[in-house]
């Protein structure tokens, strides 16, 4: 079976066929991108994201010191009390490592775990959602009952349970946080696919005699992805916060050589009275990064909303 002619079924613009053709004739995605470029929220969000990703990738180049290298400059007084100085821009942490270096490498850890866990949630959730929304019937009931069970446990608790079951490692964190996202993606994709199921282009594809599987994977799925991509961006923010939360609860990677923002807060917490910045810097890093992804996700949601088009 070959793909249908594009004239008949144009997946890009058929999201809401009647309004899009009459207004501008440009595709939903292109229009959305245009609106995104004009939104200050999106620009700030994207800027934060770019800086974060650049820092995470370039951490070895940017960092003034080796990660987790300890410099015991003075053993009689705790080094971390000194705060910032000319050699260490943000001071030294409790273990004698350069704070700035640790923060830069922490970004790397957050990015890797955040992205991988969201991908795990996205792939597993989207798979389940496609099964349920695309095939309906008993498959739908079965998948959705399973999703209901997962949803009956609050997501952080679900992540805590899985992380606790898998032991302390970065991999456990990724699986735990990813699994907690599965029900969200499954429900979202299912409902947006159900919404597409009766649209004109599906009827057209059916009347052309395409196989059900081809219609679902080639037409319904691509057209239902918009809200899912938005959700994935927002979930990245949640994932970065949850990584820190699980580390904070002692469920993260406990290898001291791996810098992680959540664990940095924990170790700074005990010295809060003498050196509050030890916990303050990593906390601010988490909040700003999460804010960046949230801003971008929210403005993407607005830009993709057909009601916003003029």
């Amino acid at each position: 079976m070959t793909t249908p002619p594009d004239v008949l079924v144009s997946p890009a613009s058929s999201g809401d066929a009647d309004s899009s053709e009459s207004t501008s004739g440009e595709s939903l995605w292109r229009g959305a991108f245009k609106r995104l470029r004009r939104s200050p929220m999106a620009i700030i969000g994207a800027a934060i994201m770019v800086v974060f990703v650049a820092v995470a990738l370039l951490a070895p180049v940017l960092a003034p010191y080796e990660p987790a290298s300890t410099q015991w400059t003075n053993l009689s007084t705790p080094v971390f009390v000194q705060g910032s100085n000319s050699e260490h821009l943000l001071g030294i942490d409790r273990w004698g490592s350069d704070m700035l270096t640790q923060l830069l490498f922490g970004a790397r850890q957050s990015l890797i775990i955040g992205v991988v866990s969201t991908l795990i949630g996205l792939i597993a959730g989207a798979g389940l959602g496609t099964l349920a929304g695309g095939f309906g019937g008993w498959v739908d009931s079965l998948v959705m009952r399973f999703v209901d069970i997962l949803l009956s446990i609050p997501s952080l608790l679900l992540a805590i349970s899985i992380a606790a079951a898998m032991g302390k490692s970065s991999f456990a964190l990724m699986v735990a946080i990813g699994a907690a996202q599965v029900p969200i993606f499954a429900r979202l994709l299912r409902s947006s696919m159900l919404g597409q199921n009766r649209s004109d282009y599906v009827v057209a594809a059916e009347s052309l005699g395409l196989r059900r599987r081809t219609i679902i994977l080639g037409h319904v799925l691509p057209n239902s992805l918009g809200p899912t991509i938005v959700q994935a961006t927002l979930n990245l923010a949640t994932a970065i916060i949850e990584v820190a939360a699980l580390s904070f609860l002692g469920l993260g990677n406990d290898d001291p050589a791996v810098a992680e923002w959540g664990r940095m807060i924990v170790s700074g917490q005990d010295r809060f009275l003498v050196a509050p910045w030890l916990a303050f810097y990593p906390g601010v890093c988490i909040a700003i990064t999460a804010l960046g992804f949230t801003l971008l996700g929210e403005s993407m949601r607005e830009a993709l909303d057909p009601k916003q088009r003029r």
Partner: protein
Amino acid sequence: MLRFALRRMALLVPTLFGLTVLLFFWVRILPGDPARSLLGQRATPEGIAKVNERYGFDQPIWKQYFLYVKALAGGDFGSSIKLHEPVLDAFVNKLPATIEISVAALLFAILLGIPLGYYAGRHIGGWLDTTIVSGSLLGVTIPVFFLALLLKYVFALQLHLLPTQGRQDARMTTDHPTGFYTLDGLLTGNFSAFTDACAHLVLPGLALGTIPLAIIVRITRASVAEVVHEDYVRTAEAKGLLRGTVNRRHIMRNALLPVVTTIGLQLGLLFAGATLTETVFAIDGVGQYLFNAIGVRDYPVLQGFILFIALMYSLINLLVDLSYGLIDPRVRVS
């Protein structure tokens, strides 16, 4: 309405059944041998065998599941391996502390969130609206435990305005007939115990309530902004109804529907968030108990607590669905 309620409740049954299966097998795949963790490093093989026999860990897995469900049906949720107290008792004992901080958090979120959201929704695009929206975005993205630490640092350690941790001043000796320290203070007529318990709730409540606050603000704002443009609002205004009446009977009543759902959903999530907040403020509640149980692999406690929390969460969602009928007559008809 009754049929709707019954059908909605019937849907809970397969979910809860599935949950017991999931929880049962999840607990079995946890690494670490419970007998070994109970007996410590000097465990002898005989000792391990004895513990396994006593708790039924030596039975085939399907039989263990069957015994588990049978016990559940009889109201027996097992006992903590470490502390030797029944799981149900432990949950009931720890619940008041968690409910208190959750209620404090929710009160803060609702009492501040709905007015702020309403104001922002009526003045979309104004500078105060922009401030409120930015603030709510920040509220969702700041990690709960970090906010808790900041609040503790500023208000307790630096300004000495509020207590740093716990539920009650250590020097205070009071009776606790209910376990709700605020209520106990009132019931025993000990007013200083009441104010002390309230003071201990402020910081945890603020920390835990920030995310629900941000979410309630945004939902209320969006909902109000949509409702004010409805025809019936214009009609009500054209009739010359007082502004307060239009706001209350026409705008708020319609705008509240999605807000109620949100509040219900948040209530369940508060229980998970409480784990973090209780850890920072050393509050002896459900979250901290559960967290300690994870550390020592106390299987029955984990199973029981997650089951109870999921049950409460599902029941709250059921109540939210049912409360629709009270707020929105249209749902009652259909």
